[in-house]
Every structure is written in C-alpha cells, then in structure tokens.
C-alpha cells in the first residue's frame, strides 16, 4: 500500500486522532504532513507491517509527541481547554450540533492521555494491546487510562445534563 492509499484509507482517522491529541486543527494538519513524510521514507518497513491501522496511528502518535516536545522546548503554550473544545467540536460529527457541543466540552475537560486512549478505543476501534503499542505504554496502563477517562466523561456528561 503506497502513501496515497494510506491517506485515502486512514487519513480521516489520523487527522481526527491528531486533532484530539493536539487540540488544534492547524497543528494536526502540520503533524499529518510530517507523518506522511516519515511514512514515505520508511517504505520497506511500511510494507512489512501486519497491522497497518495500528502502524499508521503509531507513526502519528510518535510525530505528535515529537511536536509536543518541540513545543515544550520552545516554551510555547499548549492549547487551552476552550481551544481544544473548539478543535474537537470541529472534528466530530454527531447526531445534532448540541450533542457535538456536549461531547466536545466533555472530551476537552479530561486529561489528554485519557482522551487519546478513549479516541483510539472508541473511534479507531483498537484493542488495548494495540493502544499500548501505539502510545508506548503497558496494556494495563492503557486500560486504566481508558477506565478513568470513561468515569470522568460519565461524570461530566451527567453534570451537564
């Protein structure tokens, strides 16, 4: 599968994941470009992987982490909760604009690493093992992040009722 086909098949998921992780559409688009540059460089490795979805999401995760490290080094400010909420609202498509707003509000308020695991589990359909591999954390850490995130989301959704 060449990078154009990867873009066609996983581009939407990758961009959505990056928006959720970075909390900014502009940053997500910049990072997506870096991801495709890296995928183009590693053409042989790309052909050898068995789980293509997990591999491309891992590449996106690594590139996003590199981007965040650079941000930290440059002492640039991370996106605020309001910006993250806007970005998530912009990336999600739901049953109604109110529902989208509610989901974006709740997702923006939980910690980024918990949000990342929830996105990978619910939106990308990965297993905890795959999530652990993508985020470079043990399986149990991924599972506990998910559980804690879901609990927080439950509280936030019930609160905003």
């Amino acid at each position, binding site marked *: 599968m060449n*990078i*154009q086909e990867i*873009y066609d098949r996983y*581009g*939407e*998921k990758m*961009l*959505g994941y990056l928006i959720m992780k970075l909390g900014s559409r502009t940053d997500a*688009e910049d990072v*997506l*470009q870096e991801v*495709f*540059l890296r995928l*183009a*460089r590693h053409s042989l490795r790309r052909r050898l992987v068995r789980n293509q979805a997990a591999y491309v999401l891992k590449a996106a995760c690594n590139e996003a982490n590199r981007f965040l490290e650079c941000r930290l080094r440059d002492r640039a400010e991370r996106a605020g909760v309001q910006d993250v909420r806007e970005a998530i609202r*912009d*990336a*999600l*498509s*739901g*049953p109604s604009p109110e*529902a*989208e707003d*509610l*989901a974006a509000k*709740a997702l923006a308020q939980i910690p980024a690493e918990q949000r990342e695991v*929830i996105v990978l589990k*619910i*939106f990308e359909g990965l297993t905890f093992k795959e999530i652990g591999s993508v985020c470079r954390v043990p399986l149990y850490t991924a599972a506990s992040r998910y559980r804690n995130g*879901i609990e927080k*989301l*439950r509280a936030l*959704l*019930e609160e905003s*009722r």
Partner: protein
Amino acid sequence: MTKNVDPEEYLKKFTFRPVPPGLRDKIFPLVKKRRARAAFWTPLQWKAVAGFLILGVSAVLIDVGAARSQKARLAGLLNLPAVSVRENGGQEELLSEIWASRSDSAWIEERLKLEKKVAGREDRRELFLYLKEEFDGS
C-alpha cells in the same frame, strides 16, 4: 439525555468529519518536495554513478580479454605450450616446462648467461656511481 449515561455508547454515535478536500493537495506536493530535497543523491547523480560503474566494469573486462588474446597470440608466435597463469612460485615450473619443450634450449642457456653478465655489470656500475657520489660528497 438520561441520568445514567453510558459514555461509550454515547461517543459511538459520533464519527470524525471527512478530511477537507484541499489537504491532500497541500500534503503530497510538500512531502514530494521535501523528499527530493533530503535525498542522499539526486536522480541525475545516481545515473552518473551508475554510468561510471558500468564504464569501470567494462574497462576491466576489456583489459582482461585483451590480455588473454595477447597471451594466446604470443604463445602462438613463440610456439609455446598453452599453460595457465600460475600462482607465485610457479614460475620455475613454468620455465622447466618451456625448457623441456624448446629445441633451442642451448641458445636460451647462452642468452641467460649473457643476461646475468649484463646484470652483474649493471650492479658494478651502480656500485661505482654510488661510491663516486659518496666520495664527491665528502
């Protein structure tokens, strides 16, 4: 929304919006451009290197072919037996083979003696020149 909301079920109703149509045209030309800039050698340089390699290999092959044909020609002219190239130390064996096959071995023997004499004379001449230089220098 009901009181006991299940976040998993709730979030499953959502999907990511499609990628904006212009993003593809933005990403791929830039990736291509940056790949070309970061390439170890440009395509033209690769072609030049390949051309030089082909030239080098052909030169070696031509040289080996020419050496073989010359050797065969020389062997034909001197009426020498067709012998293969020997490793170091095989010269004496080769010489004895040639020696045995030649009818004019006496002539060759004389010739070798003469060569030896000339070589000895050259040695003496070099020694003389060396001593002369030493003497002149002091």
